């Protein structure tokens, strides 16, 4: 196969240090060193995904920017992606460009959320993505570079740089990389993507405009209701301290607590329904945390964390020991909705003619 013709401008840098300075000085990085995006490396990504450089991945709706495979691949290489990682980055971006994700708002907002990327299906194992130890941290190469690629694409394709399009007041560390693989092998639950309607055999990406994880701990019970009450309490805390608006929350349930839930026969649906009932506050509670000015005459109104139980993304991940868990709050209620897409599926293809 002949090398594909790339259209991006090229620069000649005298050695690896000069490459780093070129990219840092132009504002093209996240502050960390990058892998030089050479034509060979970029072409390898495109060939792996069987995409021509000018393949249109989507149109960003606010500024009408055409996102092409070539530009995604350049940023993926910079992040450290190997060719096999690239289809995941493409799918994440296809998901982010869906209207319901509201990419511009979610990435520009003072709220400072990051794009949480959740991997499901066989591709996790092909890539060596690890959903066990340190699942929300630096767990493995695949999730590290995929999450970073999503951010570098935002920086370079949408100008989501601090002080430019990115107006975050604080941001959070997930803005470097925020990708987790679900631990499907060590769980009897449906995977997140199955729970959201995809086949088990499909590899999938879910994106969510997400705040930083808030860790909980409860090692002193095996009762599902008590374990989940701790998760719900942290969500109530978020409703009180951050935003009262309902939307997609995620919870991360590591093995130790997960096994108690599964031994008692609790499915993800049961978990979500229980939390939906428990994670809600009265508006008057805002007066207890210094927000009395906005309670007004609606103190008795009840505000659930989600509009419905299926807005909760229940994710099995984490190391084998420790009675920990995490909740991941939405950027801001329902302004952005989580999107799940199968990797390699043609979302714009016409349905088969009957």
């Amino acid at each position: 196969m002949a090398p594909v013709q790339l259209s991006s401008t090229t620069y000649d840098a005298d050695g690896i240090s000069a490459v780093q300075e070129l990219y840092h000085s132009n504002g093209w990085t996240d502050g960390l060193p990058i892998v030089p995006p050479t034509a060979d490396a970029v072409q390898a990504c495109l060939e792996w995904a069987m995409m021509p450089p000018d393949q249109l991945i989507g149109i960003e709706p606010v500024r009408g920017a055409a996102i092409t495979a070539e530009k995604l691949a350049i940023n993926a290489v910079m992040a450290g992606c190997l060719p096999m990682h690239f289809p995941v980055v493409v799918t994440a971006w296809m998901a982010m460009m869906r209207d319901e994700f509201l990419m511009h708002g979610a990435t520009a907002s003072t709220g400072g959320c990051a794009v949480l990327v959740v991997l499901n299906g066989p591709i996790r194992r092909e890539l060596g993505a690890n959903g066990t130890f340190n699942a929300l941290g630096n767990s493995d190469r695949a999730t590290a570079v995929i999450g970073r690629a999503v951010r570098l694409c935002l920086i370079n394709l949408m100008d989501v740089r601090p002080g430019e399009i990115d107006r975050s007041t604080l941001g959070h560390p997930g803005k470097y990389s925020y990708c987790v693989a679900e631990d499907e092998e060590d769980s009897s639950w449906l995977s997140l993507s199955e729970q959201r309607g995809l086949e088990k055999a499909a590899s999938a990406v879910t994106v969510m405009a997400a705040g930083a994880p808030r860790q909980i701990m409860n090692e002193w019970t095996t009762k599902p209701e008590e374990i989940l009450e701790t998760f719900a309490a942290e969500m109530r805390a978020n409703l009180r301290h951050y935003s009262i608006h309902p939307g997609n929350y995620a919870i991360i349930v590591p093995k130790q607590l997960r096994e108690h839930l599964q031994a008692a026969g609790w499915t993800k649906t049961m978990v979500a329904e229980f939390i939906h009932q428990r994670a809600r506050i009265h508006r008057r509670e805002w007066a207890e945390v210094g927000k009395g000015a906005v309670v007004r005459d609606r103190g008795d109104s009840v505000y659930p964390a989600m509009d419905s139980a299926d807005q909760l993304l229940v994710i099995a991940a984490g190391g084998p020991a420790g009675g920990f868990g995490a909740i991941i709050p939405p950027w801001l209620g329902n302004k952005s909705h989580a999107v799940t897409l199968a990797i390699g599926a043609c979302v714009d293809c016409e349905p088969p003619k009957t």
Partner: protein
Amino acid sequence: MIIRVLDPTMEKGAPIGQPAPRLDTLKGKRIGFISNGKEGTKGFFAHLDRMLREDYGVAEVINRTKSNYSAPADADIVAEIKGWDALVSGIGD
């Protein structure tokens, strides 16, 4: 050793969005405000409204607020813009 690397940015500007022609004067003009509805916009637009009318002779100020402060303006607001001489928007917090 020379390493030849690629530009990671869009390079070409987005296809939409050109600066509108500047007005010669504000006197007698209709000026629209599109607010995102955040708390900090209220005082800002109220002050600007008064200043435009009292100091610059603007004939009319039309105030509109988006239904979702993080999303593009609603279609019915966008449809009104062609009836205005100028527009103030993009004011966040």
